[in-house]
């Protein structure tokens, strides 16, 4: 009896949504908003059978709503609205999973992307006092080199902006940054004075 009751309720809901969609096809925007709002949990349930990731699932729900809008002329009111809607939601979930799979194949995880030095010892600079060590070493640099390094690398100014701020030419800035980095590297690896 419970199964029959559930089935009858689903059928009644299908008919009600179908009637609203038919009205939406005829230009009734209130019916359109009502049917989209009412069927959103249904879309989430259908797409959720394939998508476990909550963020991806939300993307699929939104993409399905947009697709419903684009293809609403293909709904035939004599047929089941839920079958039509679930086919769209299911297809969008498959598309989203495939897209994520393709992206995962060509992108690197952030943790690896943040690796900066091949030498493991150099990564010790990630320690909390690394900034202080660098700052202390920079103090020992000639004025023009320190200024160039600060503006271009620390403050991330463009060469043009740094040239305006320092009065050095872009060419001189490039040379000074290069020399400063070379000097710092030599001091860090123990090659400097």
């Amino acid at each position, binding site marked *: 009896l419970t199964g029959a009751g559930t089935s009858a309720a689903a059928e009644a809901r299908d008919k009600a949504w179908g009637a609203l969609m038919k009205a939406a096809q005829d230009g009734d925007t209130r019916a359109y908003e009502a049917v989209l709002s009412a069927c959103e949990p249904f879309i989430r349930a259908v797409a959720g059978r394939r998508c476990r990731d909550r963020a991806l699932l939300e993307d699929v729900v939104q993409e399905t*709503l947009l697709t419903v809008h*684009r293809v609403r002329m*293909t709904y035939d009111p004599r047929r089941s609205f839920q079958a039509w809607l679930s086919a769209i939601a299911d297809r969008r979930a498959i598309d989203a999973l495939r897209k994520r799979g393709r992206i995962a194949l060509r992108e690197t995880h952030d943790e690896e992307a943040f690796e900066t030095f091949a030498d493991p010892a150099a990564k010790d600079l990630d320690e909390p006092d690394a900034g202080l060590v660098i700052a202390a070493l920079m103090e020992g640099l000639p004025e023009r080199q320190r200024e160039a390094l600060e503006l271009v690398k620390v403050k991330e100014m463009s060469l043009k902006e740094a040239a305006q701020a320092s009065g050095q030419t872009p060419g001189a800035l490039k040379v000074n940054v290069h020399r400063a980095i070379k000097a710092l590297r030599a001091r860090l690896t123990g090659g400097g004075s």
Partner: protein
Amino acid sequence: VTSPNQELIARIAAQGRPVRRLGSPGLRAIGWLALVAVLGCAVVMRWADLADFVRRTGGLLQACAWLMAIATGVSGVIAASYVSFPDRSRRWAWLPLPFLVLWLALSGIGCVGLPIGPDAHSGSCVKFILMTGSPITAFLMWRLWRAHPIDAGLTGLLAALGAAGLSAALLQFFHPFAITALDLALHLAAAAILMGAGLLLGRLAKGRLATV
């Protein structure tokens, strides 16, 4: 509880202009096929040598192969139309397969005992299939894309298969010699080019859908 997508829903609903419901996929396909048939008949009546066509396809094998080419074309167009609707089964895509297999098998059997080729006309067959198949594919995709197919690649592929079958059937009216193995291979290559283009165009067109 307010839905997180309520704003999007309101925006979509505000753009809910009246739309004309598309007819059933079967009827749509029949309409397109009728138009292609009328144009094909006009071309045949104007330029083909019917007496020669009857002489060459007079044998049971050749006639069956020709009919299977038509069946592949017709079933390809019908399948594309059904697949372009979201709630119709993807299994419609298998509809042209038996006709395609029979067409290839019968054409292959017809090649037995004939020289393999090549001959002077082989290149013109490819050109004919591509030149008639391309506008048919373009026309079908233009009509099919009114439904914004959610499986766009498959829809494009089936439309191109239908166009290739119909073009190959039409080619028989302008093919003044028996089909050799090389001819068949070239016909297949032309059909494959069309289908590849249909698949690619379908996928490219998928990303060009209107957004809200």
